[in-house]
Protein backbone atom coordinates (compact mmCIF):
# COMPACT_ATOMS: atom_id res chain seq x y z
CA UNK A 1 0.00 0.00 0.00
CA UNK A 2 2.60 2.53 1.04
CA UNK A 3 4.70 1.48 -1.95
CA UNK A 4 1.72 2.25 -4.20
CA UNK A 5 1.47 5.63 -2.57
CA UNK A 6 5.15 6.31 -3.22
CA UNK A 7 4.72 5.21 -6.83
CA UNK A 8 1.73 7.51 -7.21
CA UNK A 9 3.63 10.33 -5.53
CA UNK A 10 6.47 9.85 -7.98
CA UNK A 11 4.04 9.92 -10.91
CA UNK A 12 2.37 13.07 -9.59
CA UNK A 13 5.66 14.87 -9.02
CA UNK A 14 7.01 13.85 -12.41
CA UNK A 15 3.91 15.30 -14.10
CA UNK A 16 4.19 18.47 -12.00
CA UNK A 17 7.83 18.81 -13.02
CA UNK A 18 6.96 18.58 -16.74
CA UNK A 19 4.66 21.55 -16.10
CA UNK A 20 7.46 23.24 -14.20
CA UNK A 21 9.57 23.06 -17.38
CA UNK A 22 6.78 24.77 -19.38
CA UNK A 23 6.54 27.34 -16.61
CA UNK A 24 10.27 28.03 -16.79
CA UNK A 25 9.89 28.59 -20.54
CA UNK A 26 7.03 31.01 -19.96
CA UNK A 27 9.03 32.77 -17.28
CA UNK A 28 11.72 33.72 -19.80
CA UNK A 29 9.07 35.08 -22.15
CA UNK A 30 6.77 36.79 -19.67
CA UNK A 31 8.59 37.05 -16.36
CA UNK A 32 11.88 38.34 -17.70
CA UNK A 33 10.88 39.98 -20.95
CA UNK A 34 7.18 40.86 -20.70
CA UNK A 35 6.11 38.94 -23.81
CA UNK A 36 2.55 37.60 -23.59
CA UNK A 37 2.20 34.13 -25.07
CA UNK A 38 -1.34 32.73 -25.35
CA UNK A 39 -0.21 29.78 -27.43
CA UNK A 40 1.78 27.75 -24.91
CA UNK A 41 -0.24 24.66 -25.81
CA UNK A 42 0.89 25.02 -29.44
CA UNK A 43 4.61 25.04 -28.64
CA UNK A 44 4.21 22.16 -26.20
CA UNK A 45 2.29 20.21 -28.85
CA UNK A 46 4.95 20.87 -31.50
CA UNK A 47 7.64 19.54 -29.17
CA UNK A 48 5.62 16.49 -28.22
CA UNK A 49 4.64 15.57 -31.78
CA UNK A 50 8.07 16.14 -33.34
CA UNK A 51 9.70 14.07 -30.64
CA UNK A 52 7.09 11.32 -30.97
CA UNK A 53 7.49 11.17 -34.76
CA UNK A 54 11.29 11.01 -34.43
CA UNK A 55 11.41 8.25 -31.83
CA UNK A 56 8.46 5.90 -32.43
CA UNK A 57 9.15 2.70 -34.34
CA UNK A 58 8.20 2.66 -38.02
CA UNK A 59 4.43 2.37 -38.45
CA UNK A 60 2.78 1.39 -41.73
CA UNK A 61 -0.31 3.68 -41.53
CA UNK A 62 1.60 6.79 -40.53
CA UNK A 63 4.45 8.75 -42.05
CA UNK A 64 7.62 8.80 -40.03
CA UNK A 65 8.41 6.73 -37.02
CA UNK A 66 12.21 7.00 -37.30
CA UNK A 67 13.03 4.92 -34.24
CA UNK A 68 15.68 7.37 -33.02
CA UNK A 69 16.92 7.55 -29.42
CA UNK A 70 14.80 9.50 -26.92
CA UNK A 71 17.48 12.17 -26.42
CA UNK A 72 17.33 12.99 -30.14
CA UNK A 73 13.55 13.30 -29.81
CA UNK A 74 13.85 15.73 -26.90
CA UNK A 75 16.35 17.82 -28.80
CA UNK A 76 14.34 17.74 -32.03
CA UNK A 77 11.14 18.71 -30.21
CA UNK A 78 12.85 21.64 -28.52
CA UNK A 79 14.41 22.84 -31.79
CA UNK A 80 11.14 22.59 -33.74
CA UNK A 81 9.22 24.53 -31.09
CA UNK A 82 12.03 27.09 -30.96
CA UNK A 83 11.89 27.59 -34.73
CA UNK A 84 8.10 28.02 -34.56
CA UNK A 85 8.50 30.57 -31.75
CA UNK A 86 11.13 32.40 -33.77
CA UNK A 87 8.77 32.73 -36.75
CA UNK A 88 5.88 34.01 -34.63
CA UNK A 89 8.18 36.39 -32.79
CA UNK A 90 9.85 37.70 -35.94
CA UNK A 91 6.41 38.44 -37.33
CA UNK A 92 4.95 40.29 -34.34
CA UNK A 93 7.52 41.43 -31.80
CA UNK A 94 8.25 44.67 -33.66
CA UNK A 95 4.50 45.50 -33.53
CA UNK A 96 2.20 46.34 -30.62
CA UNK A 97 2.55 44.16 -27.55
CA UNK A 98 -0.89 42.60 -27.85
CA UNK A 99 -0.41 41.63 -31.51
CA UNK A 100 1.97 38.97 -30.23
CA UNK A 101 -0.80 37.72 -27.94
CA UNK A 102 -3.28 37.56 -30.82
CA UNK A 103 -0.76 35.86 -33.11
CA UNK A 104 0.12 33.21 -30.52
CA UNK A 105 -3.59 32.61 -30.00
CA UNK A 106 -3.81 32.03 -33.75
CA UNK A 107 -0.86 29.64 -33.61
CA UNK A 108 -2.61 27.65 -30.89
CA UNK A 109 -5.76 27.32 -33.01
CA UNK A 110 -3.78 26.43 -36.12
CA UNK A 111 -1.49 23.87 -34.50
CA UNK A 112 -4.53 22.18 -32.93
CA UNK A 113 -6.10 22.08 -36.39
CA UNK A 114 -2.96 20.66 -38.02
CA UNK A 115 -2.56 18.00 -35.36
CA UNK A 116 -6.18 16.96 -35.87
CA UNK A 117 -6.21 17.01 -39.65
CA UNK A 118 -2.74 15.92 -40.78
CA UNK A 119 -3.70 12.34 -40.09
CA UNK A 120 -0.86 10.69 -42.06
CA UNK A 121 1.68 12.52 -39.92
CA UNK A 122 0.07 12.94 -36.51
CA UNK A 123 -2.46 10.14 -36.32
CA UNK A 124 -5.32 12.66 -36.30
CA UNK A 125 -7.75 12.52 -33.38
CA UNK A 126 -6.33 9.19 -32.22
CA UNK A 127 -2.90 10.63 -31.58
CA UNK A 128 0.34 8.69 -31.45
CA UNK A 129 0.83 5.74 -29.14
CA UNK A 130 3.77 3.52 -28.20
CA UNK A 131 6.13 6.43 -27.69
CA UNK A 132 9.27 4.95 -26.14
CA UNK A 133 9.47 5.69 -22.43
CA UNK A 134 12.74 6.30 -20.62
CA UNK A 135 13.84 3.39 -18.40
CA UNK A 136 11.40 1.06 -20.12
CA UNK A 137 13.50 -1.91 -18.96
CA UNK A 138 12.34 -1.13 -15.42
CA UNK A 139 8.64 -1.10 -16.38
CA UNK A 140 8.06 -4.41 -14.58
CA UNK A 141 8.72 -2.69 -11.26
CA UNK A 142 6.41 0.35 -11.05
CA UNK A 143 8.24 1.82 -8.09
CA UNK A 144 11.72 1.73 -9.60
CA UNK A 145 10.29 2.88 -12.95
CA UNK A 146 8.48 5.82 -11.33
CA UNK A 147 11.46 6.88 -9.24
CA UNK A 148 13.86 6.65 -12.17
CA UNK A 149 11.59 8.85 -14.28
CA UNK A 150 11.17 11.27 -11.40
CA UNK A 151 14.95 11.48 -11.03
CA UNK A 152 15.33 12.13 -14.76
CA UNK A 153 12.71 14.87 -14.76
CA UNK A 154 14.08 16.43 -11.58
CA UNK A 155 17.53 16.46 -13.17
CA UNK A 156 16.10 18.16 -16.26
CA UNK A 157 14.37 20.82 -14.12
CA UNK A 158 17.52 21.34 -12.06
CA UNK A 159 19.76 21.74 -15.12
CA UNK A 160 17.29 24.15 -16.72
CA UNK A 161 16.92 26.06 -13.48
CA UNK A 162 20.66 26.49 -13.05
CA UNK A 163 21.11 27.44 -16.69
CA UNK A 164 18.28 29.97 -16.60
CA UNK A 165 19.43 31.37 -13.29
CA UNK A 166 22.86 31.84 -14.81
CA UNK A 167 21.34 33.38 -17.93
CA UNK A 168 19.24 35.81 -15.87
CA UNK A 169 22.31 37.00 -14.00
CA UNK A 170 24.42 37.25 -17.13
CA UNK A 171 24.73 40.49 -19.10
CA UNK A 172 22.08 39.09 -21.46
CA UNK A 173 19.56 38.75 -18.64
CA UNK A 174 20.34 42.23 -17.39
CA UNK A 175 19.67 43.67 -20.81
CA UNK A 176 16.34 41.83 -20.95
CA UNK A 177 15.25 43.30 -17.63
CA UNK A 178 16.49 46.73 -18.62
CA UNK A 179 14.43 46.57 -21.80
CA UNK A 180 11.37 45.46 -19.87
CA UNK A 181 11.69 48.24 -17.34
CA UNK A 182 12.68 51.09 -19.63
CA UNK A 183 12.95 50.38 -23.31
CA UNK A 184 14.09 53.87 -24.31
CA UNK A 185 16.93 53.93 -21.80
CA UNK A 186 18.09 50.49 -22.94
CA UNK A 187 17.99 51.66 -26.54
CA UNK A 188 19.99 54.74 -25.64
CA UNK A 189 22.67 52.41 -24.29
CA UNK A 190 22.90 50.76 -27.67
CA UNK A 191 20.85 47.60 -27.01
CA UNK A 192 18.40 46.52 -29.67
CA UNK A 193 15.17 45.57 -27.88
CA UNK A 194 13.65 43.66 -30.80
CA UNK A 195 16.61 41.33 -31.16
CA UNK A 196 16.78 40.56 -27.43
CA UNK A 197 13.04 40.00 -27.17
CA UNK A 198 13.10 37.67 -30.14
CA UNK A 199 15.93 35.65 -28.58
CA UNK A 200 14.05 35.38 -25.28
CA UNK A 201 10.84 34.35 -27.05
CA UNK A 202 12.65 31.69 -29.07
CA UNK A 203 14.44 30.23 -26.03
CA UNK A 204 11.15 30.18 -24.11
CA UNK A 205 9.38 28.43 -26.99
CA UNK A 206 12.16 25.84 -27.25
CA UNK A 207 11.88 25.09 -23.52
CA UNK A 208 8.13 24.62 -23.89
CA UNK A 209 8.79 22.22 -26.76
CA UNK A 210 11.26 20.33 -24.58
CA UNK A 211 8.59 20.09 -21.88
CA UNK A 212 6.12 18.71 -24.42
CA UNK A 213 8.62 16.12 -25.61
CA UNK A 214 9.53 15.07 -22.07
CA UNK A 215 5.86 14.79 -21.10
CA UNK A 216 5.01 12.77 -24.21
CA UNK A 217 7.79 10.30 -23.53
CA UNK A 218 6.81 10.01 -19.88
CA UNK A 219 3.16 9.21 -20.62
CA UNK A 220 3.90 7.22 -23.77
CA UNK A 221 0.84 8.48 -25.65
CA UNK A 222 -0.18 11.85 -27.08
CA UNK A 223 -3.43 13.08 -28.63
CA UNK A 224 -4.76 16.50 -29.75
CA UNK A 225 -6.94 16.67 -26.62
CA UNK A 226 -3.84 17.09 -24.45
CA UNK A 227 -3.08 20.43 -26.08
CA UNK A 228 -6.33 22.37 -25.75
CA UNK A 229 -6.33 26.04 -24.63
CA UNK A 230 -6.85 24.86 -21.04
CA UNK A 231 -3.19 23.77 -20.96
CA UNK A 232 -2.16 27.35 -21.73
CA UNK A 233 -4.37 28.56 -18.90
CA UNK A 234 -2.91 26.09 -16.44
CA UNK A 235 0.67 27.08 -17.19
CA UNK A 236 -0.24 30.75 -16.86
CA UNK A 237 -1.94 30.13 -13.55
CA UNK A 238 1.18 28.28 -12.37
CA UNK A 239 3.52 31.13 -13.23
CA UNK A 240 1.24 33.85 -11.84
CA UNK A 241 0.65 31.94 -8.60
CA UNK A 242 4.33 31.20 -8.16
CA UNK A 243 5.40 34.69 -9.07
CA UNK A 244 6.52 35.76 -12.51
CA UNK A 245 10.13 36.74 -12.93
CA UNK A 246 11.31 34.20 -10.39
CA UNK A 247 12.47 30.77 -11.59
CA UNK A 248 11.99 29.20 -8.18
CA UNK A 249 8.49 30.67 -8.08
CA UNK A 250 7.78 29.14 -11.49
CA UNK A 251 8.69 25.65 -10.25
CA UNK A 252 6.84 26.08 -6.96
CA UNK A 253 3.74 27.45 -8.73
CA UNK A 254 3.72 24.48 -11.11
CA UNK A 255 3.75 21.99 -8.24
CA UNK A 256 1.09 23.86 -6.21
CA UNK A 257 -1.34 24.50 -9.08
CA UNK A 258 -0.92 21.00 -10.47
CA UNK A 259 -1.54 19.69 -6.95
CA UNK A 260 -4.74 21.72 -6.56
CA UNK A 261 -5.84 20.68 -10.03
CA UNK A 262 -5.18 16.97 -9.49
CA UNK A 263 -6.79 16.98 -6.05
CA UNK A 264 -9.93 18.80 -7.18
CA UNK A 265 -10.19 16.52 -10.23
CA UNK A 266 -9.93 13.51 -7.91
CA UNK A 267 -12.57 15.04 -5.63
CA UNK A 268 -14.86 15.63 -8.62
CA UNK A 269 -14.58 12.05 -9.82
CA UNK A 270 -15.04 10.68 -6.29
CA UNK A 271 -17.98 12.74 -5.03
CA UNK A 272 -19.88 13.99 -8.07
CA UNK A 273 -22.36 11.67 -9.79
CA UNK A 274 -21.15 10.64 -13.26
CA UNK A 275 -23.85 12.55 -15.19
CA UNK A 276 -22.82 15.80 -13.50
CA UNK A 277 -19.06 15.37 -13.87
CA UNK A 278 -18.73 17.44 -17.04
CA UNK A 279 -20.45 20.31 -15.26
CA UNK A 280 -18.25 20.01 -12.21
CA UNK A 281 -15.17 20.01 -14.45
CA UNK A 282 -16.44 23.25 -16.01
CA UNK A 283 -16.72 24.75 -12.55
CA UNK A 284 -13.15 23.69 -11.88
CA UNK A 285 -12.06 25.75 -14.89
CA UNK A 286 -14.14 28.73 -13.72
CA UNK A 287 -12.10 28.56 -10.53
CA UNK A 288 -8.80 28.80 -12.42
CA UNK A 289 -10.06 31.78 -14.44
CA UNK A 290 -11.38 33.63 -11.41
CA UNK A 291 -8.23 32.75 -9.47
CA UNK A 292 -6.06 34.19 -12.24
CA UNK A 293 -8.02 37.47 -12.18
CA UNK A 294 -7.97 37.62 -8.37
CA UNK A 295 -4.22 37.20 -8.20
CA UNK A 296 -3.78 39.92 -10.84
CA UNK A 297 -5.99 42.20 -8.75
CA UNK A 298 -4.82 41.35 -5.25
CA UNK A 299 -1.32 39.97 -5.37
CA UNK A 300 0.26 40.71 -8.76
CA UNK A 301 3.67 39.52 -7.57
CA UNK A 302 2.49 35.98 -6.82
CA UNK A 303 3.73 33.83 -3.93
CA UNK A 304 7.42 34.39 -4.39
CA UNK A 305 7.69 37.17 -6.93
CA UNK A 306 10.74 38.82 -8.36
CA UNK A 307 13.21 40.59 -6.19
CA UNK A 308 12.74 44.17 -7.29
CA UNK A 309 15.68 45.62 -9.11
CA UNK A 310 16.98 49.13 -8.74
CA UNK A 311 15.46 50.05 -12.05
CA UNK A 312 11.92 49.60 -10.81
CA UNK A 313 12.28 52.15 -8.04
CA UNK A 314 11.71 55.10 -10.29
CA UNK A 315 9.69 53.36 -12.90
CA UNK A 316 7.26 55.02 -15.22
CA UNK A 317 5.24 52.16 -16.67
CA UNK A 318 4.96 52.30 -20.41
CA UNK A 319 1.96 51.03 -22.24
Amino acid at each position, binding site marked *: MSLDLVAYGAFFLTMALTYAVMCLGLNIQWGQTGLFNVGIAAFVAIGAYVSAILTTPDTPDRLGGFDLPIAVGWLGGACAAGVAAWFVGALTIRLRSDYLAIATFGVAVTVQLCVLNLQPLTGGPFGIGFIPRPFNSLAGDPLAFGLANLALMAALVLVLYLALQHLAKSPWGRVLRAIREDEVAAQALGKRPIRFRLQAFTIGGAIMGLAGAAQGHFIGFIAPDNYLPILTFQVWAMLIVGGSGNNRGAILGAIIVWGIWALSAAAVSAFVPPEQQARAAALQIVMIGVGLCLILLLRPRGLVGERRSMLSLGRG*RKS
Partner: protein
Amino acid sequence: MNPQFIMDGLIAGALIGLGAIGVTLTYSILRFANFAHGEFLSWGAYLALAISGSIGFLSANLTKPIAPFSFGWSLPIAALLAVLLTGVLALALDAVLFGRLRSRGGAVIILVMASFGASLALRSLLEFLFTSKPAYYTKALQIAVRLGGGLRATPDQLLVLGVTLVVVIAIHLLLTRSEIGRSMRAVSENPALAGIAGIDVRRIIRFVWFIGAALACIAGIMTGLLVQIRPYLGHDLLLPLFAAAILGGIGSVPGAMIAGLIVGLSEAAAVQLVGAEWRAAVSFVILVLVLLLRPRGLFGRPA
Protein backbone atom coordinates in the same frame (compact mmCIF):
# COMPACT_ATOMS: atom_id res chain seq x y z
CA MET B 1 -16.83 26.55 -57.91
CA ASN B 2 -20.36 26.74 -56.62
CA PRO B 3 -21.46 30.42 -56.37
CA GLN B 4 -23.35 29.57 -53.20
CA PHE B 5 -20.10 30.16 -51.29
CA ILE B 6 -20.69 33.91 -51.81
CA MET B 7 -23.94 33.72 -49.87
CA ASP B 8 -22.42 31.61 -47.07
CA GLY B 9 -19.43 33.92 -46.90
CA LEU B 10 -21.55 37.08 -46.78
CA ILE B 11 -23.61 35.72 -43.89
CA ALA B 12 -20.61 34.48 -41.91
CA GLY B 13 -18.80 37.72 -42.73
CA ALA B 14 -21.70 39.89 -41.55
CA LEU B 15 -21.65 38.16 -38.17
CA ILE B 16 -17.84 38.38 -37.90
CA GLY B 17 -18.01 42.05 -38.87
CA LEU B 18 -20.56 42.86 -36.15
CA GLY B 19 -18.38 41.20 -33.53
CA ALA B 20 -15.23 42.82 -34.90
CA ILE B 21 -16.74 46.31 -34.54
CA GLY B 22 -16.91 45.72 -30.79
CA VAL B 23 -13.32 44.45 -30.72
CA THR B 24 -12.03 47.39 -32.70
CA LEU B 25 -13.92 49.97 -30.58
CA THR B 26 -12.72 48.58 -27.23
CA TYR B 27 -9.24 48.27 -28.69
CA SER B 28 -9.10 51.89 -29.85
CA ILE B 29 -10.58 53.43 -26.69
CA LEU B 30 -9.31 51.11 -23.96
CA ARG B 31 -6.12 50.22 -25.84
CA PHE B 32 -6.03 46.50 -25.26
CA ALA B 33 -7.04 43.35 -27.12
CA ASN B 34 -10.00 41.98 -25.20
CA PHE B 35 -9.88 38.19 -25.26
CA ALA B 36 -13.18 38.10 -23.37
CA HIS B 37 -15.06 39.72 -26.25
CA GLY B 38 -15.98 36.35 -27.75
CA GLU B 39 -17.72 35.47 -24.49
CA PHE B 40 -20.08 38.41 -24.96
CA LEU B 41 -21.33 36.65 -28.10
CA SER B 42 -21.90 33.40 -26.24
CA TRP B 43 -23.48 35.08 -23.23
CA GLY B 44 -25.75 37.13 -25.49
CA ALA B 45 -26.89 33.99 -27.27
CA TYR B 46 -27.54 32.08 -24.05
CA LEU B 47 -29.25 35.03 -22.34
CA ALA B 48 -31.61 35.32 -25.30
CA LEU B 49 -32.19 31.56 -25.15
CA ALA B 50 -33.07 31.67 -21.47
CA ILE B 51 -35.34 34.71 -21.82
CA SER B 52 -37.12 33.51 -24.94
CA GLY B 53 -37.60 30.14 -23.24
CA SER B 54 -39.26 31.79 -20.25
CA ILE B 55 -41.43 33.98 -22.49
CA GLY B 56 -42.54 30.89 -24.37
CA PHE B 57 -43.33 29.30 -21.04
CA LEU B 58 -45.62 32.22 -20.13
CA SER B 59 -47.40 32.49 -23.44
CA ALA B 60 -47.17 29.75 -26.04
CA ASN B 61 -48.70 32.17 -28.52
CA LEU B 62 -45.49 34.14 -28.73
CA THR B 63 -43.46 31.14 -29.87
CA LYS B 64 -45.54 30.61 -33.02
CA PRO B 65 -43.28 31.34 -35.99
CA ILE B 66 -43.81 34.75 -37.60
CA ALA B 67 -44.57 34.17 -41.24
CA PRO B 68 -41.50 33.45 -43.34
CA PHE B 69 -39.13 33.14 -40.35
CA SER B 70 -38.47 30.18 -38.08
CA PHE B 71 -39.02 31.94 -34.73
CA GLY B 72 -41.89 33.64 -32.91
CA TRP B 73 -42.12 37.06 -31.27
CA SER B 74 -40.50 35.68 -28.13
CA LEU B 75 -37.06 35.82 -29.78
CA PRO B 76 -37.00 39.50 -30.84
CA ILE B 77 -38.33 40.51 -27.40
CA ALA B 78 -35.73 38.30 -25.72
CA ALA B 79 -33.05 39.73 -28.01
CA LEU B 80 -33.78 43.28 -26.84
CA LEU B 81 -33.52 42.25 -23.19
CA ALA B 82 -30.42 40.16 -23.86
CA VAL B 83 -28.71 43.14 -25.55
CA LEU B 84 -29.32 45.21 -22.42
CA LEU B 85 -28.14 42.43 -20.11
CA THR B 86 -24.99 41.72 -22.12
CA GLY B 87 -24.20 45.43 -21.93
CA VAL B 88 -24.67 45.28 -18.18
CA LEU B 89 -22.40 42.22 -18.02
CA ALA B 90 -19.66 44.15 -19.83
CA LEU B 91 -20.08 47.14 -17.52
CA ALA B 92 -19.94 44.87 -14.48
CA LEU B 93 -16.77 43.21 -15.79
CA ASP B 94 -15.22 46.64 -16.27
CA ALA B 95 -16.24 47.72 -12.77
CA VAL B 96 -14.84 44.69 -10.93
CA LEU B 97 -11.85 43.85 -13.11
CA PHE B 98 -10.65 46.06 -15.95
CA GLY B 99 -11.46 49.41 -14.36
CA ARG B 100 -9.48 48.53 -11.25
CA LEU B 101 -6.49 47.33 -13.20
CA ARG B 102 -6.67 50.45 -15.36
CA SER B 103 -6.80 52.81 -12.41
CA ARG B 104 -3.72 51.11 -11.01
CA GLY B 105 -1.93 52.20 -14.17
CA GLY B 106 -0.29 48.86 -14.91
CA ALA B 107 1.00 47.72 -18.27
CA VAL B 108 -1.50 47.09 -21.07
CA ILE B 109 -0.57 43.46 -21.20
CA ILE B 110 -1.93 42.92 -17.66
CA LEU B 111 -5.34 43.92 -19.01
CA VAL B 112 -4.95 41.43 -21.87
CA MET B 113 -4.09 38.75 -19.36
CA ALA B 114 -7.05 39.62 -17.14
CA SER B 115 -9.35 39.42 -20.17
CA PHE B 116 -7.84 36.01 -20.88
CA GLY B 117 -8.71 34.81 -17.38
CA ALA B 118 -12.16 36.39 -17.54
CA SER B 119 -12.92 34.68 -20.85
CA LEU B 120 -12.01 31.30 -19.37
CA ALA B 121 -14.21 31.86 -16.34
CA LEU B 122 -17.18 33.20 -18.34
CA ARG B 123 -17.06 30.41 -20.91
CA SER B 124 -16.81 27.63 -18.37
CA LEU B 125 -19.58 29.22 -16.33
CA LEU B 126 -21.84 28.91 -19.39
CA GLU B 127 -20.75 25.31 -19.76
CA PHE B 128 -21.64 24.75 -16.11
CA LEU B 129 -25.06 26.44 -16.36
CA PHE B 130 -26.22 25.14 -19.74
CA THR B 131 -23.86 22.13 -20.27
CA SER B 132 -21.94 21.80 -23.52
CA LYS B 133 -24.88 20.25 -25.37
CA PRO B 134 -25.84 22.43 -28.37
CA ALA B 135 -29.13 24.32 -28.01
CA TYR B 136 -31.49 25.92 -30.55
CA TYR B 137 -33.94 28.83 -30.44
CA THR B 138 -36.43 26.94 -32.51
CA LYS B 139 -36.92 23.48 -33.89
CA ALA B 140 -38.60 24.75 -37.07
CA LEU B 141 -36.94 23.84 -40.35
CA GLN B 142 -36.58 26.32 -43.16
CA ILE B 143 -36.52 25.88 -46.90
CA ALA B 144 -34.00 28.00 -48.77
CA VAL B 145 -35.46 30.24 -51.48
CA ARG B 146 -33.81 30.77 -54.86
CA LEU B 147 -32.44 34.27 -55.33
CA GLY B 148 -31.20 33.88 -58.90
CA GLY B 149 -27.59 33.54 -60.03
CA GLY B 150 -27.43 30.12 -58.43
CA LEU B 151 -27.74 31.61 -54.93
CA ARG B 152 -30.05 30.34 -52.23
CA ALA B 153 -30.79 31.61 -48.76
CA THR B 154 -33.35 30.92 -46.05
CA PRO B 155 -35.56 33.81 -44.88
CA ASP B 156 -33.68 33.77 -41.56
CA GLN B 157 -30.38 34.26 -43.35
CA LEU B 158 -31.76 37.18 -45.37
CA LEU B 159 -33.09 38.70 -42.16
CA VAL B 160 -29.62 38.41 -40.59
CA LEU B 161 -28.09 40.27 -43.52
CA GLY B 162 -30.77 42.96 -43.28
CA VAL B 163 -30.39 43.41 -39.51
CA THR B 164 -26.61 43.63 -39.86
CA LEU B 165 -26.91 46.31 -42.54
CA VAL B 166 -29.28 48.41 -40.41
CA VAL B 167 -27.18 48.03 -37.25
CA VAL B 168 -23.92 48.88 -38.99
CA ILE B 169 -25.38 52.00 -40.63
CA ALA B 170 -26.86 53.08 -37.30
CA ILE B 171 -23.52 52.63 -35.50
CA HIS B 172 -21.67 54.44 -38.25
CA LEU B 173 -24.06 57.41 -38.03
CA LEU B 174 -23.85 57.39 -34.25
CA LEU B 175 -20.08 57.52 -34.32
CA THR B 176 -19.71 60.11 -37.06
CA ARG B 177 -22.68 62.45 -36.52
CA SER B 178 -23.48 62.51 -32.81
CA GLU B 179 -21.85 64.33 -29.92
CA ILE B 180 -20.89 61.11 -28.16
CA GLY B 181 -19.34 59.72 -31.33
CA ARG B 182 -17.14 62.79 -31.66
CA SER B 183 -16.14 62.46 -28.00
CA MET B 184 -15.25 58.82 -28.62
CA ARG B 185 -12.96 59.69 -31.48
CA ALA B 186 -11.34 62.37 -29.33
CA VAL B 187 -10.71 59.85 -26.53
CA SER B 188 -9.28 57.32 -28.95
CA GLU B 189 -6.86 59.93 -30.31
CA ASN B 190 -5.69 61.21 -26.95
CA PRO B 191 -7.52 60.41 -23.69
CA ALA B 192 -5.62 62.96 -21.58
CA LEU B 193 -6.28 65.81 -23.98
CA ALA B 194 -9.91 64.79 -24.36
CA GLY B 195 -10.29 64.88 -20.57
CA ILE B 196 -8.84 68.38 -20.45
CA ALA B 197 -11.25 69.47 -23.16
CA GLY B 198 -14.12 68.59 -20.83
CA ILE B 199 -15.01 65.14 -22.15
CA ASP B 200 -16.05 62.70 -19.43
CA VAL B 201 -13.64 59.90 -20.35
CA ARG B 202 -15.22 57.41 -17.94
CA ARG B 203 -18.62 57.92 -19.50
CA ILE B 204 -17.11 57.28 -22.94
CA ILE B 205 -15.46 54.09 -21.67
CA ARG B 206 -18.77 52.84 -20.25
CA PHE B 207 -20.49 53.71 -23.52
CA VAL B 208 -17.90 51.78 -25.54
CA TRP B 209 -18.25 48.70 -23.35
CA PHE B 210 -22.00 48.83 -23.72
CA ILE B 211 -22.01 49.30 -27.50
CA GLY B 212 -19.36 46.62 -28.03
CA ALA B 213 -21.20 44.10 -25.88
CA ALA B 214 -24.55 44.97 -27.47
CA LEU B 215 -23.19 44.34 -30.97
CA ALA B 216 -21.56 41.14 -29.76
CA CYS B 217 -24.89 40.03 -28.30
CA ILE B 218 -26.69 40.67 -31.60
CA ALA B 219 -24.00 38.75 -33.49
CA GLY B 220 -24.17 35.92 -30.97
CA ILE B 221 -27.96 35.61 -31.17
CA MET B 222 -27.89 35.57 -34.96
CA THR B 223 -25.11 32.98 -34.98
CA GLY B 224 -27.17 30.92 -32.58
CA LEU B 225 -30.22 31.31 -34.80
CA LEU B 226 -28.44 30.25 -38.01
CA VAL B 227 -26.13 27.57 -36.62
CA GLN B 228 -26.51 26.49 -33.01
CA ILE B 229 -25.83 27.78 -29.51
CA ARG B 230 -22.78 26.32 -27.77
CA PRO B 231 -20.59 27.60 -24.94
CA TYR B 232 -17.68 27.69 -27.42
CA LEU B 233 -19.64 29.78 -29.95
CA GLY B 234 -17.77 32.97 -29.07
CA HIS B 235 -14.40 31.35 -28.47
CA ASP B 236 -14.41 29.77 -31.93
CA LEU B 237 -15.19 33.16 -33.49
CA LEU B 238 -12.50 35.02 -31.53
CA LEU B 239 -9.68 34.51 -34.03
CA PRO B 240 -11.84 35.65 -37.00
CA LEU B 241 -12.89 38.68 -34.93
CA PHE B 242 -9.29 39.65 -34.19
CA ALA B 243 -8.25 39.01 -37.78
CA ALA B 244 -11.07 41.23 -39.03
CA ALA B 245 -10.36 44.02 -36.51
CA ILE B 246 -6.67 44.10 -37.44
CA LEU B 247 -7.30 43.73 -41.18
CA GLY B 248 -9.81 46.58 -41.05
CA GLY B 249 -7.46 48.76 -39.05
CA ILE B 250 -7.87 49.25 -35.30
CA GLY B 251 -10.51 51.90 -34.56
CA SER B 252 -12.19 51.85 -37.97
CA VAL B 253 -15.82 50.72 -37.88
CA PRO B 254 -16.34 50.50 -41.67
CA GLY B 255 -12.94 48.78 -41.83
CA ALA B 256 -14.00 46.14 -39.31
CA MET B 257 -17.21 45.46 -41.23
CA ILE B 258 -15.53 45.21 -44.64
CA ALA B 259 -12.73 43.10 -43.19
CA GLY B 260 -15.33 40.88 -41.52
CA LEU B 261 -16.90 40.25 -44.92
CA ILE B 262 -13.46 39.53 -46.41
CA VAL B 263 -12.71 37.00 -43.65
CA GLY B 264 -16.15 35.40 -44.04
CA LEU B 265 -15.85 35.13 -47.83
CA SER B 266 -12.31 33.72 -47.62
CA GLU B 267 -13.49 31.13 -45.11
CA ALA B 268 -16.36 30.10 -47.36
CA ALA B 269 -14.02 29.93 -50.37
CA ALA B 270 -11.52 27.86 -48.40
CA VAL B 271 -14.26 25.44 -47.39
CA GLN B 272 -14.95 24.81 -51.09
CA LEU B 273 -11.34 24.76 -52.28
CA VAL B 274 -9.45 23.11 -49.40
CA GLY B 275 -12.05 21.48 -47.20
CA ALA B 276 -14.20 22.40 -44.23
CA GLU B 277 -11.74 21.02 -41.68
CA TRP B 278 -9.27 23.83 -42.46
CA ARG B 279 -11.78 26.65 -42.09
CA ALA B 280 -10.42 27.84 -38.74
CA ALA B 281 -6.92 28.32 -40.19
CA VAL B 282 -8.12 30.93 -42.73
CA SER B 283 -8.24 33.72 -40.14
CA PHE B 284 -4.73 32.87 -39.04
CA VAL B 285 -3.42 33.05 -42.60
CA ILE B 286 -5.15 36.42 -43.08
CA LEU B 287 -3.75 37.64 -39.75
CA VAL B 288 -0.21 36.63 -40.71
CA LEU B 289 -0.52 38.28 -44.12
CA VAL B 290 -1.80 41.54 -42.63
CA LEU B 291 0.92 41.63 -39.98
CA LEU B 292 3.54 40.95 -42.65
CA LEU B 293 2.34 43.30 -45.35
CA ARG B 294 0.34 46.06 -43.72
CA PRO B 295 0.29 45.91 -39.91
CA ARG B 296 -1.94 48.95 -39.61
CA GLY B 297 -4.69 47.30 -41.64
CA LEU B 298 -6.73 48.58 -44.55
CA PHE B 299 -8.15 51.72 -42.96
CA GLY B 300 -6.01 52.12 -39.87
CA ARG B 301 -3.90 55.09 -38.89
CA PRO B 302 -0.16 54.49 -39.05
CA ALA B 303 1.15 53.49 -35.63
